[in-house]
């Protein structure tokens, strides 16, 4: 028997109303919602966005941009590729793109365009004071160009990228299990970077490791300068 929440959701879809939210409790619920969407999407309602909507959104965007600071039309594409390539080590599309378009500072600060990707373009950056990362501790960091997690276990430090290697979604630390969960496709990584479980038929690649050291009373990771 179909639960009330699903039934209402489906009726809303059929009436082309905004479907009301409810808590999906079972795979059956999710399957029925997914199927209803698939059928509905093939129906008569899909004739593209209305003029009214596209024009309205264009106005909202214009308004939102007019109070934004002017973004310099700065650096060349090549420089972008350079920065992104280093940042992501080819693994984290999300992080790379994020960084690419993230704003003037990171890109503009890149060194003169040498025309090549220089993997040594990086700097040791403090992510957490040493005394705040005890043995067994995990710390999330974001140095602008790279986001990730650093842990100390058995007296050793380890840092991994915090961006899923599948589609670039940001991973979230599950403190209880000491695992990194991707919000997008039910994929979980260990802090070593290996995949623990994944709903994907082909599990995503292991998370890239980042060089990490301890100096000047801080844990530092080696990453492109922000």
């Amino acid at each position, binding site marked *: 028997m*179909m639960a009330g929440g699903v*039934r209402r959701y*489906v009726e809303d879809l059929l009436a*082309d*109303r*905004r*479907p009301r*939210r*409810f*808590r*999906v409790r079972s*795979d*059956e619920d*999710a*399957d*029925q*919602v997914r*199927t*209803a*969407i*698939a*059928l*509905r*999407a*093939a*129906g*008569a*309602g*899909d004739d*593209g*966005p*209305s003029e009214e*909507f*596209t024009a309205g*959104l*264009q106005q*909202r*965007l*214009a308004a*939102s*941009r007019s109070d934004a600071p002017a*973004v310099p*039309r*700065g*650096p*060349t*594409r090549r420089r972008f590729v350079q920065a992104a390539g280093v940042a992501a080590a080819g693994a984290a*599309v*999300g992080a790379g*793109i994020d960084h690419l*378009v*993230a*704003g003037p500072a990171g*890109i503009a600060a890149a060194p003169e365009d040498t025309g090549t990707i220089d993997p040594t373009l990086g700097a040791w950056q403090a992510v957490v004071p040493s005394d705040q990362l005890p043995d067994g501790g995990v710390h999330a960091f974001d140095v602008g160009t790279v986001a990730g997690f650093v842990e100390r276990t058995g007296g050793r430090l380890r840092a991994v990228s915090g961006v899923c290697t599948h589609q*670039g*979604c940001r991973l979230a630390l599950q403190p209880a299990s000491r695992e990194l969960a991707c*919000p*997008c*496709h039910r994929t979980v990584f260990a802090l070593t970077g290996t995949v623990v479980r994944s709903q*994907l038929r082909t599990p995503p690649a292991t998370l890239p490791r980042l060089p990490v050291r301890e100096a000047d009373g801080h844990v530092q990771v080696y990453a492109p300068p922000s």
Partner: protein
Amino acid sequence: MRQVRIGRRSVEENDGDRGTEVPRLRLVSAEAYSGWEEIYRDNVTRLYRTIYAKVGNRADAEDLTAEVFLTALRPLRVSASVGEVRAYLLATARTVLASHWRRTLGVQVTTLDDERVETVFGDAPTAASADAAARADAILGALPDRYRTILRLRFLEGCSVRDTADIMGITVANAKVLQHRALGAAAKVGA
């Protein structure tokens, strides 16, 4: 000179970027856009259709499309290439859709997982709709006749329960029950 891919109709180059009547030119992915308005105009319809195929209703599709552009366009550098802009829009849409499901149902009912930039923004302007139609056909094709009929009438053709009941020669109450059973069976096919 700007390279252009021509849409369904053959047109001369669109220099002005102004005339709304001018059929859309498709930019090649290595080119850059002239401004954010062009980014918007060039991609809004496909992005909307792609999202619509994942949520199945206009209200949510409009909200999520708006969220993608409002999130993406502010920090976007116009000098990024067309391919990079589209990759960024699609990556943003993935995250926006994922958080929509987290917010509303608590599970990831649909994803933009398998969608590729080349198909979403490719030559076929209605690729998302064609995909949706194929998926619906596959589901319906695996069902018994009466299930297939009621789902087609209700979901694809948009008939009311009453009209559906009349067409099928059953009572309204029976039509409701039949619809629920049919959707349950369809969900098992699609799962």
